[in-house]
C-alpha cells in the first residue's frame, strides 16, 4: 500500500522542475495517440518543434499565438489567486474583441485609436467579469457556473452582431467590417505578424507580477484567496477585493481580444478565439498562478498549437492532438503540484 504523506519542506529545485516534469509526462502520454494514428512519435514531435520554434519566422508565429494566452493566463492566475473562479475568460476575450472592433472602425489618428481600443476592450472584459463577481456577492451564485454560462451568452451576442448589423452585405459572410488601417497594430519585424500587442503582453506579465507580489492590492488578493476569514479579521473588505480582482481579471482577458482584433484579424469573426480563454486556465496552472511563469507556459501551449497544424499536414495525425495535450498538461500539472505538498510513502515499509 502507498499513501500520501505531508511534506515538511519542498526542495527548491523541485518547485522549478515541476512544470517541466508535467510537460514531459504529457508528451509521453500523448505519444500513445500519435502511435495509434500510425505516425512516428519522434517524427511527429520533431515536426511540431521545428514548425513552432525552428526558425525565426516560426518563433514569431508562436509568439503571436502566445500573446492572447499570456493575457488570459494572467487573467485566470490573478482571479484564482483570490479564489475568484473566473472560468469566463473566453467570454471576456470576445467582449474585448467586439468592443475594440467598434472603436477601431471609427476614423481617427492611429495612436489614439489603438489607445482607445485597449481601454474600451479592457473595460468590456472587466464589465463581463463583474457579472459573476456581483452575482456571487449579492446572490451567492457560484461564480464557476455563472462565468461559464456567460461565455455562451457573449458568444451568441457576438454571433448576433456579425450575422446581423455587422454582416458583410457585399460578400454575405458573417464577419464584422474591418477596423481602420491606421488602427492596425504596427508590425515589429517586416515579413512577420509580430505586432505591438505581443510586446504589450510580454510587458503585462512582469507588471502583474509586481502588482500581486509588491502592492497592497496584491497582498489583499493573496490573503483573500488563502484565507478569507483571516482577511476579514485583518480588516480587508473581502467583497471589494473580489470586485477589484474581477475587474482586473476581466480587463486582462479583454485585452487578449483587443490584441487579436488589432494585431491579427483586424475584424471580428465567429472563430476569433480557438478557446484561448480555456487555454488561459491551463497556462495559469502550469505557471502555478505566478504571472512571470505565465509567459513560458503560454509560449509552450502556443508552440503546441502552431506545431500541431504542421504535424497534421506532415504526418496525418489530427491537429486536435493539441487540445488533448492541453487537457493532459492541465491534469498532469495538478498531479505534479500534489507532490510539492505530499510525497508517496510505502505504508509498512522501514523508514
Amino acid at each position: 500500500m502507498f499513501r500520501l504523506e505531508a511534506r515538511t519542506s519542498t526542495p527548491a529545485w523541485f518547485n522549478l522542475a515541476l512544470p517541466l516534469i508535467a510537460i514531459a509526462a504529457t508528451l509521453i502520454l500523448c505519444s500513445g495517440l500519435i502511435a495509434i494514428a500510425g505516425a512516428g512519435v519522434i517524427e511527429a514531435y520533431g515536426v511540431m518543434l521545428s514548425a513552432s520554434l525552428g526558425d525565426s519566422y516560426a518563433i514569431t508565429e508562436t509568439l503571436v499565438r502566445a500573446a492572447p494566452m499570456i493575457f488570459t493566463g494572467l487573467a485566470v492566475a490573478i482571479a484564482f489567486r483570490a479564489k475568484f473562479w473566473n472560468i469566463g475568460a473566453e467570454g471576456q476575450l470576445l467582449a474585448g474583441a467586439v468592443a475594440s472592433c467598434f472603436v477601431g472602425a471609427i476614423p481617427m489618428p492611429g495612436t489614439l485609436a489603438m489607445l482607445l481600443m485597449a481601454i474600451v476592450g479592457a473595460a468590456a472584459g472587466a464589465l463581463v467579469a463583474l457579472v459573476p463577481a456581483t452575482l456571487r456577492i449579492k446572490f451567492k451564485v457560484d461564480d464557476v457556473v455563472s462565468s461559464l454560462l456567460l461565455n455562451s451568452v457573449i458568444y451568441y451576442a457576438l454571433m448576433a452582431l456579425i450575422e446581423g448589423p455587422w454582416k458583410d452585405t457585399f460578400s454575405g459572410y458573417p464577419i464584422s467590417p474591418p477596423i481602420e488601417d491606421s488602427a492596425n497594430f504596427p508590425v515589429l519585424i517586416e515579413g512577420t505578424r509580430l505586432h505591438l500587442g505581443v510586446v504589450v503582453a510580454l510587458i503585462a506579465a512582469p507588471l502583474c507580477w509586481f502588482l500581486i507580489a509588491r502592492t497592497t492590492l496584491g497582498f489583499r488578493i493573496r490573503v483573500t484567496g488563502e484565507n478569507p476569514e483571516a482577511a476579514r479579521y485583518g480588516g480587508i473588505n473581502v467583497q471589494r477585493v473580489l470586485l477589484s480582482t474581477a475587474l482586473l481579471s476581466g480587463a486582462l482577458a479583454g485585452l487578449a481580444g483587443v490584441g487579436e482584433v488589432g494585431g491579427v484579424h483586424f475584424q471580428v469573426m465567429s472563430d476569433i478565439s480557438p478557446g484561448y480563454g480555456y487555454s488561459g486556465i491551463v497556462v495559469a496552472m502550469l505557471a502555478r498562478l505566478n504571472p512571470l511563469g505565465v509567459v513560458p507556459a503560454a509560449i509552450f501551449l502556443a508552440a503546441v498549437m502552431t506545431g500541431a497544424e504542421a504535424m497534421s499536414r506532415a504526418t496525418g495525425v489530427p491537429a486536435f492532438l493539441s487540445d488533448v495535450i492541453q487537457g493532459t498538461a492541465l491534469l498532469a500539472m495538478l498531479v505534479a503540484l500534489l507532490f510539492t505538498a505530499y510525497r508517496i510513502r510505502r505504508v509498512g515499509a522501514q523508514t
Partner: protein
Amino acid sequence: MSAVFEQIFQVGFLAAIIRIATPLAFATLGEMFSERAGVLNLGIEGIMLLSAMAGFTAASLSGSLWLGVLVAVLVGALMGALHALFTVALGLSQHVCGIGVTLFSSGLAYFLYRLIFGQQSVPPSIDGFKLAPIPLLSDIPVIGPAVFNQFTLVYMAIIAVPLAAFVLYRTPWGLAVRMVGENPRAADSAGVSVIATRFQAVILGGALMGLAGAFLTMAQFNAFTFGVVSGRGWVAIALVVFGRWDPWRSAGAALLFAFVDALQLRMQASGLGHIPYEAFLMLPFIFTIVAMAFMSRNAVAPSALLKPFRREER
C-alpha cells in the same frame, strides 16, 4: 402573441419539451449524484461529448444502437472514474480538475472522431433510435402522443427520476452518499468508506452523463458534430443548483429549461419579426443565470462539496 400560445399547447410542442429535457435530465441526475457525494464534476461537458462520440462510433461501426449506448455509458463511467481519481483519491482542486477533464475529453473526442472518420464535407450519420410508442398509453389525448410516443431512452429518463430518488433517499448506499457529501468525518466514523462511496457516486454520475451523450448522437441528431453538446453540460450543473440537489426538483428544473428552450425554438421558427435568432439561443443561458440568482439564496449545497477528504488529517 395568441398564435404563440396556441403553439405551446400543441402535442408537437409538448413532445419537443420532453425530448429536449431527456439528455438534460440524465446529465443533471448524474451531476447531482456526484455533488451529493461532495464532488463537483465540471468534466460533464467533455464527458458528454466523448460519450456522444464513442456511442456514435460504436453504433456506426457495429450497426447496433444499444451497443452504442452501452459504450457511451462505459466511457462516461470511465471518465467519471478519472475525475474521481484526481479529486477523490488525490484530493486535487475539483474546479480545475473538472476543467481539465473537459478539455482532455473534448480534445480526445474530436481527435479520435477525425482519426476514425477522417475529414468529410457531410458528417456521417446513422439510423438512430426510432420512436417506440407504448400501446394504449400513447392513445391518451395530448399527453399520450407527447409522452408515450417517444424514444426508449426517453422512457428510461422518465424512470430514472423516481429511481434516483429511491436510491438516494431509500437505500443504504444512498444514505452513504448523502453522508459523505454532508459530513465525511461522521460517515467515516460510522464505518462508511468515504473514498469508495465518492468514487461510486462520481462513476454513476459519469455513466448518466454518458447516457445523455448517447441520446444526443443516437436519438436526437443521429450524427456527431462539433457543437453536439453545446453547453448542455454546463446547463446541467446550473440545473442541479436550481433543483436544490434533489432528483425530483432537478428533473423539474430540466423540464422548465426544456420549456424555455423549446419556446425559443418555436419563436425562431415562427420568425418573430426581426429579432436575430441568436437572441433566442442565448435566452436559455440567461434564464439559467437569472434563475440561479433567485434560487441560490435558499439553495443549500452539500456541506462537504468541493472539500477533499483525507483520513489522517484533522
